[in-house]
């Protein structure tokens, strides 16, 4: 019988350098505790899905680019009729009446926070993150330089979480570290 398989992040220090900053302007971390799933409503069954999500998680499915959270579960809008379901810890979304695909391994999620987080992200992400334009609970599908990202804001620190295709995670980490270096980045795996 082979040994059990260990789960591992897509990041290692030699491709995703760690940097300590005493009074960091921006903090970069990986969220490794998330369960993720793509959820898409079938034709004519949108209400059924909304009901199921409401009854299972107490969440009203968002129809605009926002993230609605309740407890450990959140649904992030991911395009018309599509969501990224997230949960802290293991949650089985596959029972929802929808097209569901596990993405827990398909995406790495990076968390960027701190008072200079906006400024750092502005060097990579071209959408307006000013609090008048984008605030806690908002979400966007966009890109960081040429890398597709799905990002949402979780608090007013501000904290942003950025979901990126796993194979790109190391590059995005490096680019964030590079951009954050003049702004006092603290990056730890």
């Amino acid at each position: 019988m082979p040994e059990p398989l260990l789960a591992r992040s897509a990041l290692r220090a030699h491709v995703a350098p760690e940097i300590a900053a005493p009074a960091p302007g921006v903090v970069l971390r990986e969220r490794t505790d998330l369960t993720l799933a793509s959820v898409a409503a079938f034709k004519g069954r949108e209400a059924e899905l909304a009901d199921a999500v409401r009854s299972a998680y107490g969440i009203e499915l968002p129809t605009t680019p926002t993230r609605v959270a309740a407890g450990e579960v959140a649904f992030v809008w991911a395009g018309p009729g599509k969501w990224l379901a997230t949960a802290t810890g293991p949650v089985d979304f596959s029972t929802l009446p929808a097209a569901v695909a596990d993405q827990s391994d398909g995406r790495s999620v990076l968390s960027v926070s701190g008072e200079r987080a906006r400024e750092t992200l502005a060097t990579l992400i071209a959408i307006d993150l000013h609090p008048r334009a984008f605030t806690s609970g908002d979400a966007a599908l966009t890109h960081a330089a040429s890398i597709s990202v799905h990002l949402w804001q979780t608090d007013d620190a501000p904290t942003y979480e950025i979901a990126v295709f796993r194979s790109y995670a190391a590059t995005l980490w490096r680019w964030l570290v590079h951009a954050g270096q003049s702004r006092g980045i603290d990056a730890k795996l």
Partner: protein
Amino acid sequence: MRIACPHCGLRGVDEFAYFGDASVTRPAADAAETAFADYVYLRDNPAGAHRELWSHALGCQSWLVVTRDTRSHAIETVEAARDVALARTSEAQS
């Protein structure tokens, strides 16, 4: 140029991939070969209002029908391609 994705809002043109003329329609399966050739190759290519297909490739993956002036790049409307296509289908059926 910035395109107002009906789902995501105004975004820079670098988030979108261009496909071309949205006024041509794929012929029915039984159409003549020449009808397909016209569909694939012939274009009005106007200087002025142009209905065209874009994909919000670095965004929500929606295909869009953008009406844009090719002289000024001013965008008049942006519609979800699926909505336009569904309207086209129901029109054809009615």
